[in-house]
């Protein structure tokens, strides 16, 4: 069930030139939200920006968490990209923010314990929604690929290290960190290390172009590849049909990112 509720800003700090970490105290949301789901945040009381903005939750700490400062809080890691996120950078401690959530269908997990490798591929701020998944899957063999335009777009590295993932790979398009190229280039470069003759899970999140490229290079036989989509949204809860992607569903080809998604099986997506 989705709630419409107010949270209180605890902290809103810049962590990289274009990236901010927002901590909101909202116990009712923190306890409900699952990995891959998102919330719609009201960023302003004015009519511009008018629409709420969708955010996946980076970390959530249900009430009772041993760290008292974090108990009941949600963490949102966002990139300043436009008018809406610009407004968010002005959020002050103690300010009320209205949100709707949890929304959408999150990732589905492999049968646990999973015998083969699990691959996570995140482009830019997309890595954030994979982090909460990695927390759930931390005792599995996790391989994390992260990419961005420059080193300032590489996020959550320390988090993944703390989870003790099997291996991390980094790519930047300007070669400022790790492999030179896109995260998909890097994944292709490393592809041989995985056992493709056994069932394999890939989870990915990032810009549409990245997901499209991944769909082109992955042979889906025996591979479950779940992708979390980003889209401009009207409402976030299924009412307006503004955020669709095209799928191979014969009855309803255009499915809602906010309702049927944001996670889709990549093999079901029809690219145009």
């Amino acid at each position, binding site marked *: *069930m*989705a*709630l*419409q509720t107010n949270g209180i800003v605890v902290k809103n700090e810049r962590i990289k030139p274009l990236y901010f970490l927002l901590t909101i105290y909202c116990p009712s949301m923190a306890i409900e939200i699952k990995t891959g789901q998102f919330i719609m945040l*009201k960023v302003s009381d004015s*009519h*511009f*920006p*008018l*629409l*709420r903005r969708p955010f996946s939750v980076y970390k959530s700490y249900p009430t009772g968490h041993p760290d008292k400062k974090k108990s009941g809080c949600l963490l949102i890691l966002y990139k300043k990209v436009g008018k809406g996120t610009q407004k968010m950078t002005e959020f002050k401690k103690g300010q009320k923010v*209205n949100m*709707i959530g949890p929304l959408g269908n999150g990732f589905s997990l492999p049968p646990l314990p999973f015998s083969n490798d699990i691959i996570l591929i995140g482009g830019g701020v997309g890595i954030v929604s994979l982090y909460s998944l990695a927390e759930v899957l931390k005792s599995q063999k996790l391989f994390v690929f992260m990419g961005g335009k420059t080193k300032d777009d590489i996020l959550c590295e320390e988090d993944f290290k703390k989870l003790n993932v099997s291996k991390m790979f980094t790519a930047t398009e300007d070669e400022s960190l790790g492999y030179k190229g896109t995260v998909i280039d890097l994944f292709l470069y490393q592809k041989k290390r995985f056992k493709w003759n056994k069932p394999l899970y890939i989870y990915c999140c990032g810009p549409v172009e990245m997901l499209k490229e991944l769909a082109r290079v992955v042979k889906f036989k025996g591979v479950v590849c779940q992708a979390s989509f980003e*889209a*401009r*949204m*009207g*409402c976030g*809860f*299924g*009412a*307006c*049909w*503004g*955020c*669709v*992607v*095209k799928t191979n569903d014969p*009855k*309803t*080809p*255009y499915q809602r990112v906010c*309702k049927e998604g944001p996670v889709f099986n990549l093999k079901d997506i029809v690219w*145009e």
Partner: protein
Amino acid sequence: MHSIPDPNLSVTIGKIKLKNPVMVASGTFGFGEEYEDFFDLNQLGAIISKGISLKPMMGNPPPRIFETEGGIINSIGLQNPGFQDFIKNKLPYYKKIKTHLIINFFGNTQREYVELARRFDEVPGISGLEMNISCPNVKQGGIVFGSDPKMAYHLVREVRKATKLNLIVKLSPNVTDIGLMAKGVEEAGADAVSLVNTFRAMAVNIHTRKPELGNIIGGLSGPAIKPIALRMVWEVSCRVEIPVIGIGGIMKAEDAIEFILVGASAIQIGTANLVNPRTGIDVINGIKKYLIQHKIEGVQKLTDLFNT
């Protein structure tokens, strides 16, 4: 001091009486169920369904929505499962709701409009129909009928013959004289008119040098259109005797009161539902509060109090 009784919020739209003048606009309220987590839908005066066509409609390619200053442009393209699937899979939910259900419908041809009206006429549990002759996002039908007064008159006259249900005709603002359109529709036998649908609009990305919408053009809604919508509702109210339902950028009770003052018998909340799903309830409460504050006994009295 004696207590003032609660103001009377009920209004009559053609053949039906609503407990309050607040409805939710087609296309912004899904099939109702999307809102059930947020409030008790029975509090609304009426619920209007997403537009239904005879056959399923796939809708337009994405991107389908773009935010502008004080508004949004959409090009959803009337995606809907079609009559049969609607009756089987969507109507059962609506039937659980006790308030009035008004079905928004449209066709690509006159035959389709008439056929749909006839079919809905036989479906129990429906309080009325809202006929969409004003969608800017589909090539066939829709706005084609809604921008030519003669075509609109003939279409509504034929649909009128096909149904006894309360018939509301939803008008397009993309016309030279909306009063003339409303007059024609009234003469053809409509029980009420609702206006306005969205304004044809577009937006361009100067970095990619592409249109922001997959369909290139779409329809503008939201607070940005309110002053124009208000003027049109005023013009139409001066021209027709049938009830006028005001739509266009209503975000709060004060906006709704403006529409009622200039002659609307009821109003519809559209874009605001997406931003705050509880807008309908807030507007109902706000109207009530205004009437109490100003010692006005009923919402229907408001229109008489407009000083020009």
